[in-house]
């Protein structure tokens, strides 16, 4: 009972902090928008061609925006010392990490998912692509948060952590990227995309079990210094 209570307290506290610093919450979204709008400028504004590459652009943009927001996960708590205090509490680090991951998804993955259809319109994504885009983001971004938590936990105490994180985490994001982008492509082509989504779901289920163990262990290693 006391455990759930303290986890709820952390959850509420973090949400409160997030909504008092709304700017930080908006940064990944702005980044997402800007990256997506660079492509028409760089490649071509021709809607036919943009529609072809839109699934890939949107997913790569979402992936990079998630990566950018991972720094927020533990950093400020580490800097003011509260992370150490939270880890000293009797509740398992595993649960703490899961709460933090959920918070990250609520602040990064979910807004990105909601914003993606707008970018789809801007990039002339063909009609059939919207539902698979939303579904794939809904199933894929939690996995990105879960895997990202490992990287955030490993680099939390490091000065050069920002550059290191993409190197550690991006290779692990590749399966999500492949299946998510191809589900959107399948939707655009009018094919069934449930198989791709099933794979995303399976990967999410697997990482839901395994990733918090790794991030809890990494967090303990990083804090132990």
């Amino acid at each position, binding site marked *: 009972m006391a455990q759930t209570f303290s986890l709820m307290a952390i959850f509420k506290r973090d949400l409160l902090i997030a909504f008092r610093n709304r700017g930080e919450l908006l940064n990944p979204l702005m980044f997402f928008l800007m990256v997506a709008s660079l492509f028409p400028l760089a490649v071509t504004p021709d809607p036919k061609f943009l529609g072809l590459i839109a699934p890939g652009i949107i997913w790569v943009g979402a992936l990079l925006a998630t990566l950018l927001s991972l720094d927020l996960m533990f950093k400020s708590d580490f800097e003011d010392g509260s992370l150490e205090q939270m880890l000293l509490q009797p509740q398992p680090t595993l649960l703490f990490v899961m709460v933090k991951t959920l918070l990250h998804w609520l602040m990064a993955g979910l807004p990105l998912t909601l914003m993606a259809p707008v970018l789809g319109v801007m990039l002339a994504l063909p009609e059939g692509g919207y539902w698979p885009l939303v579904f794939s983001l809904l199933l894929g971004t939690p996995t990105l948060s879960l895997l990202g938590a*490992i990287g955030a936990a*490993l*680099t939390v105490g*490091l000065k*050069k*952590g920002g550059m*290191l994180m993409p*190197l*550690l985490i*991006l*290779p*692990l994001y*590749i*399966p999500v990227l*492949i*299946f998510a982008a*191809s589900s959107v492509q399948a939707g655009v082509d009018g094919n069934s995309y449930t198989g791709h989504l099933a*794979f995303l779901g399976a*990967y999410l289920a*697997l990482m839901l079990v*395994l*990733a918090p163990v*790794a991030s809890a*262990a*990494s967090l303990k*290693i*990083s804090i*132990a*210094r």
Partner: protein
Amino acid sequence: MWSALKRLYHQLGSPKWFYEITSRWSPWFLWIGSTLMIIGVVWGLAFAPADYLQGNSFRIIYVHVPAALLSQSAYIMMAVAGLVGLVWNMKMSFVVGKTIAPIGASLAIIALVTGAIWGKPTWGTWWVWDARLTSMLILLFLYMGVMAIYNAIESEEMANKAAAVLALVGSINIPIIKYSVEWWNTLHQPATITLTKKPTMAPEMFIPLVLTIIGLYCWFAVWVFARTRNEILWRERRTKWVKSLLNTGANH
């Protein structure tokens, strides 16, 4: 049997013992490996028949396949070493894990470069986004991540553990990455060697390949031993046995 294994495990945990035993093993591995390598390479390059489709360009497999194979198993070795280190807090295991990372990365680079050289005459292009090329490239990225974490973290103990966690996470994801990339795109020919099926290659092409693979494994062992012994000397530089070892070495 069990107690002998246990004793070996505890001996392996001792840097001094590891240093001494590997300096005795290294020449053996070096000689056996070099002999196999020379026989395999000369046989493969000069005497094996040319492929009826690819001509002589297929001969690069005597470098390419062993390097590709070994870079993958090296990652697993690194992850296992990390697991042993994390679970039993065994120092030597971390040392071995650290020394494997750059070796595995260089083997992955060799496999990629030789693959590109082979791809030019065969596929007509240096690089294609084929499943196996791509997963080899991702394997290289994973190695780079592990090496980067060693560079970024100053505290040795923390770097060891962090890299071990990362190697483990990577090893769980490697099969997933491999299969997702495979479903995504396949152009590469199917695996040359599988343990369960009879080789599809002619035996006079196949035997030299096996020799070069075993030879490279031996060289890999020599390479790992040499780097590990260097690392041991560095980490144990304040201990008595290293000081006396280096002093007697200087007197010779």
